[in-house]
């Protein structure tokens, strides 16, 4: 996650990153409270829209087939408790950090790690139905069926 975000930064930002990181903890912490970053710790979708940045996905989610059956965290945080809270902490911290600095693309893209979390989430709920198509080596990622390849809009129509 960290790596990818660094990659994301435009060059100039890359240069100052070292300096700002220290700062960031402070800033991040500030926003964490200000933007109700702690909302990460709850499970209702509204929590995520404390950031207008998440509005697009939120309204997309309201139109999605999963509105009634899955909230943000169901798809964007691992099921197991530790994984769940570390991911939330990470999202929480980084999102707060980027939100405050404003250093992120206008069109946010899910990170590779975020993708994995979500792919797992699909299987978490749809284990049975996809049992047949998962195939023998479903463990190894290049052998996994990517649900997102075909269903990337189930969570929010974009």
């Amino acid at each position: 996650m960290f790596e990818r975000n660094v990659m994301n930064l435009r060059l100039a930002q890359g240069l100052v990153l070292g300096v700002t990181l220290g700062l960031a903890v402070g800033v991040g912490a500030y926003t964490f409270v200000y933007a109700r970053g702690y909302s990460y710790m709850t499970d209702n979708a509204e929590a995520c829209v404390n950031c207008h940045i998440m509005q697009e996905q939120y309204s997309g989610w309201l139109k999605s087939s999963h509105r009634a059956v899955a909230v943000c965290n169901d798809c964007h945080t691992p099921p197991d408790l530790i994984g769940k809270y570390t991911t939330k902490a990470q999202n929480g911290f980084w999102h707060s950090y980027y939100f405050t600095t404003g250093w992120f693309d206008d069109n946010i893209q899910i990170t590779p790690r975020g993708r994995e979390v979500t792919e797992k989430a699909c299987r978490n709920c749809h284990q049975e139905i996809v049992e047949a198509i998962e195939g023998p080596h479903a463990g190894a990622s290049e052998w996994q069926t990517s649900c997102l390849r075909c269903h990337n809009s189930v969570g929010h129509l974009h």
Partner: protein
Amino acid sequence: FQRKQEERNPFFRVVELTDDTVDPAIWGKNFPLQYDDYLKTTDQVRTRYGGSEAEPRTPTQADPRSIVAQSRLEEDPRLKLMWAGYAFAKDFREERGHAYMLEDQMFTERQQVTQQPGTCINCHASVYVAYKQLGGGDIVKGFEQLNRTPYFEARKFVTHPVACIDCHDSQTMQLRVTRPAFMEGIRAFKASQGIQNYDVNKQATRQEMRAFVCGQCHDEYHFSGPEKRLVYPWAKGLQVENILAFYDEQKFKDWEHAETGAPVLKAQHPEFEMWNQGIHARSGVACADCHMPYKREGALKVSDHHVRSPLLNINRACQTCHRWSEDELKSRVETIQRRTYDLRNLAMDALIDLINDIKAAKGAGRTDTGVRTAQDFQRRAQFYLDFIESENSNGFHAPQEAARILGESINFSRKGQVALRGGV
């Protein structure tokens, strides 16, 4: 907390705008974000096939510009032969940002070789208010009057390149079409589709308007009759064959080719027509979606008024809809453009061969039907080729259609060569 503020309060009206406020700087007081971006159209950055290159030059009396865009004629001298006898053979450059439209039109050497009518100004300046004043409130009257005025006189009636008022209603900021030529053109086109008396400003959807405001200028055109009326040739449809059929019916020609005597046509920037043939138009994706994508300004989403190549702005222009990396999207576009460009070169060679053949035949004193048939093929081949050559996306707006048109152009050129030679 800045951010939370913005959310609630997008912009403050500091000045009153009227339907006569031309100066964008004044509009800019109410809409600083859009104005700041609008000013950036002076930037010149090159992409593989688009953007533009800033070429320094020493200003002269006749042409005070110290920077121009690269010459397309130098990039490909074959263009000079294709346009032999027409002003374009003298000077033709890569187009650049909106900020330059007025000066580039004034100072192109094309102005020196012919007397241009005021009609030209329709697409190179903020003419809406000028139309109104000249027409005593009736823009169509003003339009007709300006068309009849010689260019340099007409030039005196305008001050700015395309400005806010050319696309926006000053009170509601809603998009609107201000160009009679487009109103008439789109009405004629809709009629060909069975929809009578189409009124674009009343009947177009908001999403359509996001393309129509651009269609006011980015399309094929010609000057009709002695009154030099600006007409978009859409009465039979928007495809290249419909347009050629329209010109044939009118027996219209732009000029007589200097080397072959063929009655030829000059196609010009049919972005609107080609976009219409593509998958994006079909999917409801408008010019503004890619060339003026929304950008985040704090908590606001505004349209990026720095109108430019989307390849200089891929994340905003494309990644809303396409979840591929910027590099991948760039190379998808370039793959399409390279295919188009390679085929365009084959079509250009074919046309040059035909032109040289006709020239040789005439040189040998031939005047037979073979020659006349060949000239007719040249007219078609050249129009089809120029339709893609002058379309500025290099095929991207409608990849398969662009290749199809070039394929037909090749067919016309080569058949012309065969016709000149007669049977085996």
